[in-house]
C-alpha cells in the first residue's frame, strides 16, 4: 500500500528461499561433524569455586570440553570487560562456563551433566537506579583495569556516561511560562529473529573457516582473531542465508568457541541454538531504560528549554553499547528547535544479559518517552499535538538541539502526510483514537568495498563484503551496477557474505548497506564503465567521452548506428585487459559537532550525517474494561531520501512498524528477583501475529539528499522502528486521559492507568 508505483524488484536469493533449497547455518553438515553444547552459568552473580571437567571428558563420544583455561585470556567489547568463557566471576545467567563437542546432542548433554561446577552466590545487581548509586555493589570490581576508548566516561557501575549541554537550561526553565516534567520507564526486550543462530567451524591446516549466522561477518572475524590470537588472513567467515537479525546477530558471539572446539577435536563442529538459548545467552538485548524529561514552554507553545536524564540497563558486559547513552540523549532531546538543552545518560552495569544493538538501539524507548511527554506539553498549553509538533520540530534550515543546522529535510512533509492519511481529524467515538509521534535516526557513513567482474559472455559478478540479513539491500546492488553500465540487473550474480572473497564491509548494522556498499558497488561499476567506453571507443573509432552505455549497447553519442554490444566488448576484453572493477569510495563526511555544544563522553552522536525523519499516526481501539489495545491502522511517512528500491524500503517500514507495535503492547522481558529472565520463550514473550497485524500505509518524502547514499538516498532499515510505540502511547493517552508510563503498555498497565485516572 505504497503511495507511489512499485517498480518490479526480483531478489536473487528469492527462489532459494521460497523453495526451501536455501541453506541456513543450521542446515549445514560436514563429514565427521560434531555437535557443540554449552554449559551456562544459570546463576546471575557468583564467584566460581570449582570447575572440574575431568569426568565430562571421559564420557564416551565426547571429544573436547573447553573452558577459559583453554583459550587466551583476552578481554573484548566496546569496554573490554568480556572473556570468551566465564572467568572467576559469573555476571549473568547466560555466561558460557564450558563448551562440549561430542558425537551427538545427547552425548554432549551427558558431558554437560558430568561437569562439576560450583560457585558461591553473590547478591545480584538487579535495579539500575540502585546500581547507579555510588555505594552500590559493583558488577565489575576491577572496571578501571579494562581497556576502553578514551572518550568513554566511566565510574563504578556506570559503564558509559554522556552529557550534552547547549545554552542555559536552568535560567531558561526558571523563566518559562510552563514547566512540565515526566518520567517514563521501559522494560528490556529482544530482537527475536525467527532463525536461532548456528555456527559451524572447520580447520584445514592453520586456516579456519566458520559458517555463522552473523549480521557482521567481518566483526565476527575480527573477534575470532582477537580472542584466539590469529591473523585475519587465516580466518574466513562465511554466512549462509541469514534468517533475520534485527541487531540480535550483530557483534561477535560464538564463532571463537566453536573454532576452539574444532581445533581441539580436529573435526568440524556445529552449534545450533534453541529458542531459549537465543533469548538468554547473546549479548544483544534492547535495554531497559528510565527517562526523565523536563521541558519549559512559552504560553504560545514554543519549547524554550529541555533537560533529560536517562539511565540505561547495560547488563553485565558492554558489548557494543558504549555509544548508547549518547544516542539515547539525542532521542530524548529529539528533532526539535530548542536552544537551551541539557541531557545526560548513564549505562549501568547490572547482572542482566548484556545490552547491545537491537534495531535502532535506544530510539524506540527514548522516542516513546519524549513523544509521550510532547503530548503532555501540548495539552498543558491547550494546543493540538500535531500543530504543536509543526511549531516546534526542525525543518530545512532550522537549528536542532545540538546546534546542527539542517539542509533539505522532509520532516514537515512527513507530519503532514502521515496525519492526512490517518483518521486523526475524524470523530472516532469514545473507544478509538489516533496518536501521532515523530522520530529520527542518523545515517552511518563508513568504509566499504566491492569488486565487479564482467566475463567473456557479458555476464557480471558483484563480489561484495556486504551482508544480506533479509532487507534486500544486497539484492539491490545489481540494480545499481546495471544502471551504471547500461546492463540489466539479471546480468549480475552476487558473491557475498564471505570475508576471504570480498573487501571489508561493516555488515548488516546501522542500516548502512545501501549507503556504503551501494557507493562501493557504483564506484566499481564506474571502473568497468570506463574500461567498456575505452574499448568501445577503439572499436567505433570515437572518443571514450562520447560513448554512452545503455540497453546492453555501447554507442557513440548522437550516432546510434555506431554501436557495439556490451557482450561483444566483454568477449574482446576477455582476451586482453579483463573487465575488473574495484570500488570503495570515500564515505560521506559526518558533520562536525557545533562549537556551541559541550559534551562529556562524546561518542560522535552530536551531529548526524544524513538524518532520517519519520512520522507515524496510529489508530487504536481500547477495551476500557480490560485495558486491551488493538492497533487498527498505521499511517507512516518517512524521509529516507530518494527511495532506490521501493519494495525493499516498504518492507522495512512495514516490518519496523510491526516490531514497534510488539514493543508497544506485548513484548517484554521480565526479570525475577534473581536477575534471571522469566519468559525466555515465544509463548510468554509475545510477538505480534498475522492476526494482530494492522494495515500499514507509507508515504516516502523523497527529499534528494546530496553526498549521501546512491541516487540521493538515505538509509531506511532502523528508522521505521522508532516512532510507532510513541504514537500508540499518545493514542492510549487520549482515550485514558493520561499516558501509560511503562513500556510495554500491556493491557494490565493500561487498565491500572485507567483506575488511577478514575481515582
Amino acid at each position, binding site marked *: 500500500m505504497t503511495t507511489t508505483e512499485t517498480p518490479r524488484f526480483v531478489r536473487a536469493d528469492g527462489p532459494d528461499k521460497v523453495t526451501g533449497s536455501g541453506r541456513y547455518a543450521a542446515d549445514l553438515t560436514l563429514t565427521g561433524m560434531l555437535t557443540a553444547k554449552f554449559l551456562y552459568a544459570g546463576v546471575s552473580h557468583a564467584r566460581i569455586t570449582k570447575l572440574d571437567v575431568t569426568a565430562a571428558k571421559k564420557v564416551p563420544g565426547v571429544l573436547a570440553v573447553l573452558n577459559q583455561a583453554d583459550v587466551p585470556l583476552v578481554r573484548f567489547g566496546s569496554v573490554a570487560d568480556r572473556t570468551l568463557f566465564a572467568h572467576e566471576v559469573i555476571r549473568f545467567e547466560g555466561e558460557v562456563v564450558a563448551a562440549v563437542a561430542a558425537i551427538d546432542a545427547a552425548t554432549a548433554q551427558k558431558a554437560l551433566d558430568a561437569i562439576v561446577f560450583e560457585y558461591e552466590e553473590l547478591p545480584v545487581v538487579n535495579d539500575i537506579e540502585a546500581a547507579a548509586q555510588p555505594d552500590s555493589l559493583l558488577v565489575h570490581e576491577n572496571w578501571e583495569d579494562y581497556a576502553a576508548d578514551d572518550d568513554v566516561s566511566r565510574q563504578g557501575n556506570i559503564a558509559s556516561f554522556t552529557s550534552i549541554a547547549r545554552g542555559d537550561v536552568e535560567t531558561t526553565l526558571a523563566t518559562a511560562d510552563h514547566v512540565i516534567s515526566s518520567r517514563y520507564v521501559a522494560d528490556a526486550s529482544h530482537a527475536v529473529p525467527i532463525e536461532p543462530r548456528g555456527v559451524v567451524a572447520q580447520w584445514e591446516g592453520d586456516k579456519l573457516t566458520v559458517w555463522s549466522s552473523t549480521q557482521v561477518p567481518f566483526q565476527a572475524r575480527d573477534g575470532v582473531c582477537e580472542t584466539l590470537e590469529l591473523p585475519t588472513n587465516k580466518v574466513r567467515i562465511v554466512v549462509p542465508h541469514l534468517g533475520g537479525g534485527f541487531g540480535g546477530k550483530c557483534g561477535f558471539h560464538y564463532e571463537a568457541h566453536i573454532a576452539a572446539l574444532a581445533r581441539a577435536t580436529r573435526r568440524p563442529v556445529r552449534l545450533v541454538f534453541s529458542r531459549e538459548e537465543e533469548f538468554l545467552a547473546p549479548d544483544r538485548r534492547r535495554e531497559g531504560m528510565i527517562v526523565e524529561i523536563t521541558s519549559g514552554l512559552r504560553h504560545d507553545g514554543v519549547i524554550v528549554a529541555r533537560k533529560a536524564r536517562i539511565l540505561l540497563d547495560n547488563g553485565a558486559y558492554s558489548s557494543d553499547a558504549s555509544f548508547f547513552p549518547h544516542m539515547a540523549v539525542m532521542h530524548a532531546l529529539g528533532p526539535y528547535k530548542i536552544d537551551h538543552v541539557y541531557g545526560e545518560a548513564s549505562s549501568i552495569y547490572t547482572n542482566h544479559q548484556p545490552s547491545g544493538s537491537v534495531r535502532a538501539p535506544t530510539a524506540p524507548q527514548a522516542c516513546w518517552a519524549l513523544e509521550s511527554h510532547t503530548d503532555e506539553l501540548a495539552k498543558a498549553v491547550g494546543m493540538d499535538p500535531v500543530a504543536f509538533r509543526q511549531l516546534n520540530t526542525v525543518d530545512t534550515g532550522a537549528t536542532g538541539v545540538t546546534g546542527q543546522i539542517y539542509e533539505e529535510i522532509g520532516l514537515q512533509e512527513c507530519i503532514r502526510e502521515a496525519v492526512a492519511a490517518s483518521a486523526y481529524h475524524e470523530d472516532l467515538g469514545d473507544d478509538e483514537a489516533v496518536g501521532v509521534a515523530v522520530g529520527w535516526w542518523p545515517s552511518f557513513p563508513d568504509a566499504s568495498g566491492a569488486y565487479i567482474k564482467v566475463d567473456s559472455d557479458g555476464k557480471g559478478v558483484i563480489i561484495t563484503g556486504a551482508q544480506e540479513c533479509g532487507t534486500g539491500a544486497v539484492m539491490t546492488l545489481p540494480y545499481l551496477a546495471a544502471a551504471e553500465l547500461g546492463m540489466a540487473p539479471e546480468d549480475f550474480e552476487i558473491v557475498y557474505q564471505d570475508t576471504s572473497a570480498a573487501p571489508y564491509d561493516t555488515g548488516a548494522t546501522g542500516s548502512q548497506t545501501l549507503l556504503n556498499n551501494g557507493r562501493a558497488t557504483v564506484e566499481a561499476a564506474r571502473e568497468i564503465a570506463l574500461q567498456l567506453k575505452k574499448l568501445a571507443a577503439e572499436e567505433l573509432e570515437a572518443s571514450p567521452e562520447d560513448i554512452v552505455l545503455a540497453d546492453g549497447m555501447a554507442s557513440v553519442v548522437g550516432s546510434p548506428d555506431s554501436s557495439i554490444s556490451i557482450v561483444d566488448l566483454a568477449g574482446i576484453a576477455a582476451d586482453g585487459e579483463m573487465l575488473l572493477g574495484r570500488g570503495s569510495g570515500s564515505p560521506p563526511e559526518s558533520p562536525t559537532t557545533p562549537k556551541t555544544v559541550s559534551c562529556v563522553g562524546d561518542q560522535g552522536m552530536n551531529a548526524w550525517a544524513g538524518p532520517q525523519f519519520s512520522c507515524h499516526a496510529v489508530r487504536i*481501539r481500547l*477495551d476500557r*474494561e*480490560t485495558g*486491551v*489495545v*488493538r492497533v487498527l491502522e498505521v499511517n507512516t511517512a518517512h524521509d529516507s531520501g530518494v527511495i532506490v528500491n521501493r519494495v525493499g524500503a516498504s518492507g522495512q517500514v512495514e516490518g519496523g512498524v510491526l516490531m514497534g507495535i510488539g514493543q508497544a*503492547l*506485548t513484548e517484554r522481558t*521480565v526479570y525475577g528477583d534473581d536477575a534471571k529472565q*522469566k*519468559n525466555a520463550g515465544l*509463548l*510468554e514473550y*509475545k510477538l*505480534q*501475529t*498475522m*492476526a*494482530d497485524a494492522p494495515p500499514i500505509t507509507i508515504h516516502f518524502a523523497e527529499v534528494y539528499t546530496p553526498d549521501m547514499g546512491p541516487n540521493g538516498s538515505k538509509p531506511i532499515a532502523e528508522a521505521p522502528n522508532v516512532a510507532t510505540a510513541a504514537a500508540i502511547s499518545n493514542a492510549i493517552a487520549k482515550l485514558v486521559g493520561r499516558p501509560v508510563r511503562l513500556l510495554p503498555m*500491556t*493491557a*494490565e498497565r493500561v*487498565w*491500572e492507568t485507567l483506575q488511577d485516572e478514575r481515582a
Partner: protein
Amino acid sequence: MSLAIANSIDDVLTALAGGARPIAGGTDLVVGARQGKSPLPESLIAIDRVPALSTIEQTDGHVRIGAGVTHSRLMSDPLLVERYTGLADAAALIGSPSTRNVGTIGGNVMNASPAMDTGAPLMTLGAIAELRSVSHTRQLALSDLWTGPGQTSANPDELCVCIVIPQTPAYSGSAYVRLEYRRAMEIAVVGAAASVVLTEDGTIASGRLAMTAVAPTIVELVGASEAMTGMAAVDAADVIASLASDQAVPISDLRGSDRYRRHTIGVMAARALDAAARRAGGERIGVPVNRNLGIGAAR
C-alpha cells in the same frame, strides 16, 4: 521409548493396562517433554487412528463426542456450532490452525490445565467424561475428574473415550470468551463460559457459568443460576461479574496479577453471559465470540 499405533479402543485399553500412555496429537505431551517439564513416557500408544474415538454421535438426549475429535472439528461441526456453541468458541481459540488440527478434546480435558479453553464451556453444558479400562467403564462429572493443575482422578489404565453432553433445551445458548493479549497463539489469561436457558419472555430461566485460569482447576460459578433467574441477561451482568470476581482465587504470574485477573474474570463472565443469552434469543453470533464481537474479548 516404544510407540504402537492402535486401531481400536481395545488395542488402546490393553496397552494402557500394560503401562503405556496414550498419545493423540502430541501437542501437550511432545512439547512438554521438549521443554523438560516431563520426559516422554517409556511406552506410548497412539490413539489418533481409532475410528471409534473420532465420532460425534447424537443419541437419545445426548451428544457423544469422541475423545479423538480435533479442535478443528469441534469449531466447525454443524451440530456443535448450532447447539453447543460455547464449546465451538473455545475450540476455535486454541493455539493456531495447526495445533487445532492435531489437538483433541480428550487431550485437552485429560491434560487438566486450569487454563484449558474447552473446560469451562464443557462444564456449563453439563458434560461428563466417559472413562474406560479393560475391566470397566465409568462416567465422571468434570468437577470430579479435575483434581488440580495437570491432575485428574482417572487411573493410569483408564482412557477417556468420549465426552457426553446432555441435549440442550430450546431457548438455550452458550458462549465462551477469554482475555487474550494477541488474537492468536494465546493461552487464556482468564476465561469464562456461560450456558443459559431463557423463558419465552426472554428472561433467564436457568443458567450456569464456569471460569478458566482463576483457580487450580476449571471451576463452576456457584450460585449463578439462583442469582440471575428471572432477570434479563443485561440486568444480571453486574451481579454475575461480582460473583465471578468474588469466587475467583487467581494467582499472579507472567500473564497477569491476581488483582487484574480478579477484575477481568468478572468482565469475561458478564460478556459470556451476554453472548450466551443473545444466542439463546436467536441471535447468530459467529464462532468464536472473541473474534466476532470485537477486541480482546467480546463486547
